[in-house]
Structures are given as structure tokens and as C-alpha cells.
């Protein structure tokens, strides 16, 4: 598959994913001609120059829900349905316009397809779980030197959007059901780190005092009295404890706070409506968090594991029950957010870290790791009811990339898309990093092209 500059990457084995700022002259000028009008000097980092030329973020959303489908779901059984004798009848493959979708497996989402765009030309760099999960969350190769300091996409969103908020009761970035390592704030200040919660509908943990509110009041008064010198005024220990006491005041504000309680307390009926699952509870919480307008802009929900190497079509284990939980919760979330109008200003992204093998299942009746994958987008004014990009009849490789860059969509491009939707200039380079190298929100380039947002999602 040649890109629009005539470069055919398909002859190469494996995958490329390193920065290659030194383009050949011919390629460089082709890029210049296409992206830029006028004369540009050729500095030592030409890709940076090209990247920063003429771009405008979409800015249609203020909030984002990012669902990491950990373990990597089979794309040919979910967002890029490819039928065969192995497809269970219960999946009920149905055509919605040009989109083929397993209506029987995910009926609620099928009912919301007019709000959903399925991006089918996505390709992971590496079919390794931890590596690619981290890749997707920091939007760059975790193996390179920069990854030590690289923040989670949500932390960058927090950094960029936090300053607009009046009500900053809650952190800007929440990570729900993370379980295990999730990328953090990197080198950014700790207030942009994810706030980890595994919500169960019974409140935010540790925001009530088990020995009673009255007891807490008297204890807290005692503490303030005994510790005043270390918290206010001339602190003999210097600035670090003062910062800690600011976190303490923020923490106290979350306690016995009815606004916060409303976000994290929901009834059994509500839980049932979302499918009575941990994923459902997380979706309710995400909806409540963003709706409350108390400073939260980015919620990641981790839901897995989709790593179905064996017996993928067993009706009561593996893919089917996972997909039902996914469908119940996300379908209801989309419906709720359309009804209250919040979907227009909220970007929803759901993706795994790579895809799964295509065609007939493997010798243990499952599917194995595979680079080709899909991603679900909704909200933020995205034009729904369609697929962007398409794959061959088996889902093996992209045949129509669906966007102007005319190549596979990579995690870096999805990162740029999220920033663009939220009005953040994805070509930003910060010069406050401890490596002294400069930190770019989105790495500039793959071997032959820039990374950038998939604006075709907006039509």
C-alpha cells in the first residue's frame, strides 16, 4: 500500500516507530509542498517545523472518556465485523447502512450507532500487552528515553484545561478500575496525576471518618492546632510540607461533601440499568464526574481482559459476556449522554492495545495477538453512523485508510485526535522538561509522515 507520497511501507517486515527527523530531500520538499505555502528554513528538526505549520484544533469538546479495552479485543468480532462459519448466530450480524455490526452481541450500542464512528484503519506498533497498553496511554513508544518522563494523555489534558475551571474541587484526571500500572503524570506536577478509584457506587473511599463526623471534626481541630506552624506562615521545614498541606485541604473538601457524594453514590437501580458490573459502575461514575463540572476533564476507564486466546465464542465465558457488559454499560452511557445533551461536548474513545488474528479461530478456538485493530469514537460533534477506513474481507489489513494522511492510524494519531477534539494544540513542544530536550505532546513523525489528528471523524 503506497502512501500519497509514493512510499510503499508494505515491503518492510515488522514495523517502524521511531522518530526520523532526517528525511531525504525529495520527501522533505514533497511534505513542504503539501503542508505549507511559502518558504521555510530547514533547521535541524525539520519535522518539527512542518508539524507546527498551519493546524487548528477542532475544539468541539471539553471532556473525554477514554475506555481502555485491556487485553485487546478481537476487532473482527466487534467493531470491524467479519463473518464466517465460526460466527455464532447469536451475534446476529446486521447492516446499518454501510456498517456491518454484531447487533445480537451488542444490541444497545447497535441502537446508538448513529452517534458512533468506527475507525477501522488503526494499527498497533507491537502486539505486546504491557508495552502497547502503555503506548496507547502516553501516545509514544515506551521503550525510548523520553518515556521516563512522558505523562499520560489525561495528564496533558489536565495541564491544558485545568486553568479554565472555576470549580476545582475534583482533580482533572480520574482513572477508574486501573488495576496495576497505568502511566502517571510523568514529569508534570503531581496535581495532574490520575486520581485512582475503583467505584462501587457506595461513595468515594476514605471520604468519611469511620469513627464519625463529630469525632473527625474534633480530631481535625486538634490536628490544625498542633500542626499550625508546619502548615501556615513561616514553615521551618520549607516549601515541601506546605504543598502537602494544600493537598490536605483539597482532601478535606471532598469529605462529607454532598456534591462529591452524589457523584460516587448511586442506587442499585442505577447500577442495574448499566448492567450491574464494575465497568457499568465506572461508566456511571464517569458520567457523574463530568456532569458535575467540578474540574474533571478526562476519565480513563480500564476494562478487560479481552485476551481471548482460547474458546473465544464460548457463550458463557470469554468474549460474549465481556461484550455484553461492555454493551450494557456503554450503550446506556451513550443514551444518557445524548438525552442530557452532554455528548456534544464529550469525546468518547474506546480501544484496545492491538487487535486479534482473523479468519478461522486458532487451534484452541481462540484468536491471538494481531496488529490490525479498530477504535470506537463518539461525541464531540463526531459524525456518526459510519465507519472511517476499511479492511479487506478478513480484517487482515487496511485497504482504505479513510483519512487524508492515507496510511495506518497509529496510537500517536489517536493521541493527536484527542487533543484536537479538546482544543489542545497537538504540536505543542514544552521546554520545561528535566531532560532539557523539549517535550512534544505528540511525537513528530513516523519514518515517512507526520502524526496528526483524524479530522475525517468529524465528516
Amino acid at each position, binding site marked *: 500500500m503506497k502512501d500519497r507520497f509514493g512510499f510503499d511501507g508494505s515491503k518492510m517486515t515488522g514495523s517502524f516507530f521511531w522518530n526520523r527527523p532526517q528525511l531525504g530531500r525529495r520527501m522533505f520538499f514533497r511534505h513542504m509542498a503539501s503542508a505549507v505555502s511559502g518558504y521555510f528554513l530547514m533547521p535541524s528538526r525539520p519535522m518539527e517545523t512542518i508539524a507546527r505549520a498551519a493546524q487548528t484544533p477542532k475544539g468541539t469538546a471539553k471532556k473525554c472518556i477514554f475506555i481502555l479495552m485491556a487485553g485487546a479485543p478481537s476487532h473482527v468480532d466487534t467493531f470491524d465485523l467479519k463473518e464466517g462459519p465460526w460466527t455464532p448466530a447469536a451475534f446476529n450480524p446486521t447492516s446499518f447502512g454501510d456498517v456491518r455490526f454484531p447487533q445480537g452481541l451488542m444490541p444497545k450500542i447497535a441502537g446508538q450507532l448513529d452517534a458512533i464512528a468506527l475507525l477501522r484503519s488503526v494499527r498497533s506498533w507491537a502486539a505486546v500487552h*504491557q*508495552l502497547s497498553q502503555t503506548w496507547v496511554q502516553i501516545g509514544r513508544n515506551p521503550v525510548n528515553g523520553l518515556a521516563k518522563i512522558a505523562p499520560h494523555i489525561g495528564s496533558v489534558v489536565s495541564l491544558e484545561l485545568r486553568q479554565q475551571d472555576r470549580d476545582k474541587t475534583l482533580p482533572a484526571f480520574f482513572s477508574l478500575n486501573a488495576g496495576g500500572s497505568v502511566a502517571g503524570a510523568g514529569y508534570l506536577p503531581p496535581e495532574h496525576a490520575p486520581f*485512582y478509584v475503583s467505584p462501587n457506587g457506595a461513595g468515594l473511599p476514605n471520604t468519611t471518618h469511620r469513627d464519625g463526623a463529630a469525632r473527625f471534626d474534633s480530631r481535625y481541630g486538634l490536628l490544625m492546632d498542633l500542626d499550625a506552624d508546619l502548615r*501556615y*506562615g513561616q514553615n521551618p521545614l520549607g516549601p515541601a510540607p506546605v504543598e502537602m498541606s494544600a493537598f490536605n485541604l483539597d*482532601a478535606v473538601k471532598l469529605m462529607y461533601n454532598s456534591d462529591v457524594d452524589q457523584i460516587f453514590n448511586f442506587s442499585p437501580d442505577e447500577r442495574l440499568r448499566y448492567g450491574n458490573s464494575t465497568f457499568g459502575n465506572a461508566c456511571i461514575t464517569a458520567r457523574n464526574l463530568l456532569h458535575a463540572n467540578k474540574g474533571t476533564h478526562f476519565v480513563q476507564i480500564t476494562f478487560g481482559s479481552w485476551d481471548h486466546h482460547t474458546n473465544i465464542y464460548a457463550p458463557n465465558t470469554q468474549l460474549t459476556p465481556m461484550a455484553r457488559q461492555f454493551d450494557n454499560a456503554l450503550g446506556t452511557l451513550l443514551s444518557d449522554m445524548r438525552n442530557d445533551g452532554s455528548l456534544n461536548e464529550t469525546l468518547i474513545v474506546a480501544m484496545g492495545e492491538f487487535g486479534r488474528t482473523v479468519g478461522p479461530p486458532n487451534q484452541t478456538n481462540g484468536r491471538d495477538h494481531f496488529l490490525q485493530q479498530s477504535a470506537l469514537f463518539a461525541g464531540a460533534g463526531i459524525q456518526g453512523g459510519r465507519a472511517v477506513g476499511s479492511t479487506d474481507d478478513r480484517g487482515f489489513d487496511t485497504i482504505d485508510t479513510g483519512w487524508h494522511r492515507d496510511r495506518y492510524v497509529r496510537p500517536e494519531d489517536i493521541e493527536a485526535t484527542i487533543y484536537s477534539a479538546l482544543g489542545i494544540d497537538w504540536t505543542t513542544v514544552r521546554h520545561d522538561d528535566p531532560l532539557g530536550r523539549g517535550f512534544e505532546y505528540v511525537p513528530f513523525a513516523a519514518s515517512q509522515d507526520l502524526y496528526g489528528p483524524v479530522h475525517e471523524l468529524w465528516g
Partner: protein
Amino acid sequence: MGICRVKFALAILATCAAGAVAQEVRQASVADCTFSADPDRFLSQQGRIRREISDRVAKFHRTYAGTGLVFADSAGPEALTRGEAATDIPQRNFIDAEIFGKLKKLGVAPAPLTTDEEFFRRINLDLTGRIPSADDVRAFLADSNPGKRDAVIDRLLYSDEFVDRWKMWLGDLMQVTSASTNIARQQQGRDSFNAWIFQSLMDVKPLKDLAYEAVSASGNTYKDAEGAANFPLNASTPMGPIQDNYDTMLARTASTFLGMAYYDCLLCHNGRGHLDQISLWGSKVTRTDAEQMAAFFSRLRLPRRPIAQNVEMPGSWDVYDQMPGGGYDLNTNYGNRPIRAPIGTLRSLTPQYRLGDKPPTAGDNWREAFAASMVKDPMFARNIVNRLWKQLFSLGLVDPVDTMDPKRLDPANPPPAPWQLQATHPELLEKLAAQFVGMNYGLREMLRFMVQSSAYQLSSRYSGEWKIDYVPLFARHYPRRLEGEEVHDAIAKATGVLGSYVVYGDKTPPVSWAMQLPEPAEPRSNGAVAAFLNSFLRGNRDNQQRSQAGSILQQLALMNDPFVLNRTKVSASPTLQSIAKISSDDAAAQEIFLTFLSRNPSDSERQRAAALLKGASGAARNAAIEDLAWAAINKLDFLFSY
């Protein structure tokens, strides 16, 4: 972020001090805060906060009205400012000559020396990760031996707790994990890795030998006797050609043992055009130079045994060097790093150490050759002493510690302008490195040397005006937040309530002290305690560094987590039970401070605490003791080592 609230709360305390009650507080001005977006909403929110705080303070006042409690204007930081004047600070070794010499030259006054209380708590935490018991504090304060600080240092250096703490430190450094992004070491591999580190510490092994073994080790990763073989496993880099493994091994080794993480960059591209502003040495290094270093690892093989029946030690890795052959082949066009192509007719690189050491022959063991060159490299000693310095002083002489620039460290060969020598105290770094070599690379010996200095024993209180320019001068000690393991263990020790955590796998017995956990992913068996520990950002020894940042979750945990509340109960805590038996209110108050904060209370602190206990008996008095214990745990001088 919290500035307005801080000023505002200060206003409250000032009015409390004057004895006024809630009304004055409501009129406290928030004019200092400039929120132009929506002033009414901001003020109503601030009003609500004001009311909440004033309600709480008023309740507290009401509770203790008529007790004769005097609310002084400020507590008077008496407890933390008692100490001798900083007139004559003894110079105990060349660290002091360098540090105080530079301070004197710049006309900057140092902080005073630590009081005995400050020193004793700090040295216990820094060397063993544990707070001292109240009895130990008392004994130390009462000891009239003028050499008592040196005696304590020696006792702690050779304690069991020292081994636990520094096994954790070396585990962070060498990335001891059971599962990470690239490597599935499994619990057996992690445990044998830890066993080797543990034995090395018990045997007082020179760090040169430890490093040499780590880099050159072969064997099976599950076997305790071959535990060092787990370090080369860090080289494993999936989704790429084997040269990616060689590169990762060099990058990890250079960062860990030489403080030169820029090799990771140089294995993708030349330094020129990338590191010109950052590293004088790096800017002149080519990718080929870096690959010639990686070539030492081009015989390294890491086959994994299948996880199947009839396989001995399934899932383990056999680390070895494939001989003969090797050579870093320039023939890759995929993977984690850019294309490796022949250079003219040169198709493969042989090992060449960066300092021009005689290259190994085909018959030599190449990893041993690298290890030998590495420990002779001046960067090895510099890197280790710099990392130890950072651990004790909170700021490296070179910081970040893995960005050391060999061309900017030797004061006898300074770099050309505009480059400057990299270390804050270049002569000191060189002397410490030489001293470390002279001490046969002894970990305990170098730590002793550092903590015996007056520079280490300075207080964190600073009486003059502090300027940010003074930071690299080490004019005072810098407080550090306790690590999660230290917080957990301090609460456990102070309350005397020890848990027992089953550790994943069958080799490690259950542990009671968090500092004995084999990796930050533990205790997998106890999610609540793991969550408590993780709120203090232990990192994962992989792609998330350990961090001393604060967070809301930490504060919520300290105030409300069952881990804390279950222990601040007289019924559960042996130490609180014995404190409850002390009939004198003053003495009981003092015991709380000695137990939790490792110091005596100031007069005003003692008065307040004793007043809480006064007149109460039975259950009410026990409740007051529990309140004091809770407050002590939530005090900032519990959470910080100062």
C-alpha cells in the same frame, strides 16, 4: 493552587489567637484572592469553606472552653527550633571542608546542627527506613557519651533493618520485578534476584563485585545461587531483532552503573544534532560508538523454558553467552530502533569500550570484559557516590542522577566555555569517588562517611532568609516525604500493631514490615494495604518511577483509611494501652510524642495535649489518647523526615 485558602486559614488562626470566635472569622477578607471569572460563585464557595472551618474550630473551642487552655498567638515552633547556635560547626571530614568552604566563600550561612532528637529520627529513617521506639529515643537523649552519634550510626549500619532497606533500594536500582512491560521474570525469578541482593548485603560485598556479577552473570533465573542472572534479563526487548536486546542491555547497564542514560538516545542516532545542548560528551558520540559498547552483549542469549509439563523450572530463563561468534551485526530494518545498515564494507561491530580499553579477543568472555572495564571506569564510582548522596541529601551533586556527563566532571580538566562543570561541588564528587574506591567500594563505609559529616547533620530549620539560590549549596538539610513503606512501618511500629502479608509465590514467608516486601506490586494478597502503600507512589520499577510527590489520596488515607483507624485504638494497640495506663497527663502526652514523632513535645504542645486528657477518665480518656495518636500520624512532621 491552595494559596488563597492558606492565607484565609491563617486569618482564622490569627483571630482564634486573639480569642475571638466565629463572627470575626466570617468577616475575614478574601480580597487577596483575585478570581475574576465568577466572583459571586467563588465567594459563596469560599463562604461555605469558611463556615465549615469555623464550625469545626468553634466546636473544638467549645469542647475545651473553661479548661484554662491558652491559645498562644502561634504554637511557637519551639519543639523544632531548640538547638545550639550555628557558630562553631565541627568539620569532620572533607565533605565539610568542601561544603562549608563554598558556603563561606559565597557568604551564605549554614543552618544550625541538628538537635539530638532531629538527628536520631533522621538517621534511623535514612539508614533503616524505621522510626525509633520511644525507649530508644529516651536512651539516646540521656546518653552522655560524646561519640553517641557515631555509635548509633554503626549500630544501624549493621542492623537487620539496614539490610531490608537497602535491599529495597538496590531492588529499585536494578528493577527487581516479577512482571514488567517486557519481562516476565515470575515470582521465582524475583525471589532469587532478591536472595542474591540480600546475601550480598549480609556478606558486606563490595559494590564493585555486586555490579560485576550483575552484568556478567549466567545461569538460570530461578536458582538462588544464580540469582544475579536476573539482571541481564532486563535486556529482553520483544518485537524486534536481537540487536534490540544488546541495546537495551547497554542502556540499562550504563544508566544503572555509570549514570549515563544518554546511551539510550545514542543507540538510535548520533549525539550531534540531538544532545548538543545537553551533554558535551554525548554531542560527540556517534551511534556506532554506542553500538560498539553494546557489542559486548552481542553474545548474550536469553532463551526461556516453556511453561509445560515435564519441563524443569518451566518459565524460567537461561542466561548465557553464545560462543564463539557474536558481533553486533548491522543488518536490521525493523524493531524498536532505526535501521542498522553496513558502514561501507563494515557489516558487523566488535566490542570497543568507550575509554579505549584493549578490546576482548574472540576467546574472552565479552560480558566479563565489559564488567571489568565498567568497574574501572571513573564513572562507576562517581555514579554510585552520587546516587548515595542523592538518597541522603535529597539532591544529587549531579541531578538527575543518570545524566552524568564524563566531559564535565573533572575539575582538573574543565570543559570549554560556555559549558560549565556539571556537579554542584566538582572537587567533592571526585574526592568522594576516590574515597569510595579506597574503601573497597563499601556501601556501609561510604554511607557512614557521608552521615558522619556535619553537612549531613545540619538541621532543616533555617533561621536567616532562605533563597532558592542556596539550594545547590546544601546550606540546610532538605526534608523529604517518607516513602510508602516507611509510612506503613512507622504506623505499625508506633502503634505496635503488625500485620502479616502473604507474598505471592511460595518462596517468601509472610512479611509484617512493608520494607521487607519483595517488590512494589506486593502485597498482592491484601488489596487494601497495597492501595494504602500505592497512594504514596511506590512506582513499579519499570515505567513508573518512585515519587515523593504529595496527593489527595495520601491525605485521605492518613485521615480515614482503616489501616490507620484500626491501629489508633487503645483496644488494638499495645503501645496505646500502656500509654493509657500512665496516670499523669503530662507524662502520657509526652509518651505520645516520643512514640509517634520520636521527640519530646514543646511546652505548649504538652500543655495542649495534657489538657485534652485532663479530667477525662476511662473510655473518655482512652478516646482522647486515640485522638492524639491520630493527630500525631497526620502531623506533617510524621510524614516528613526532616
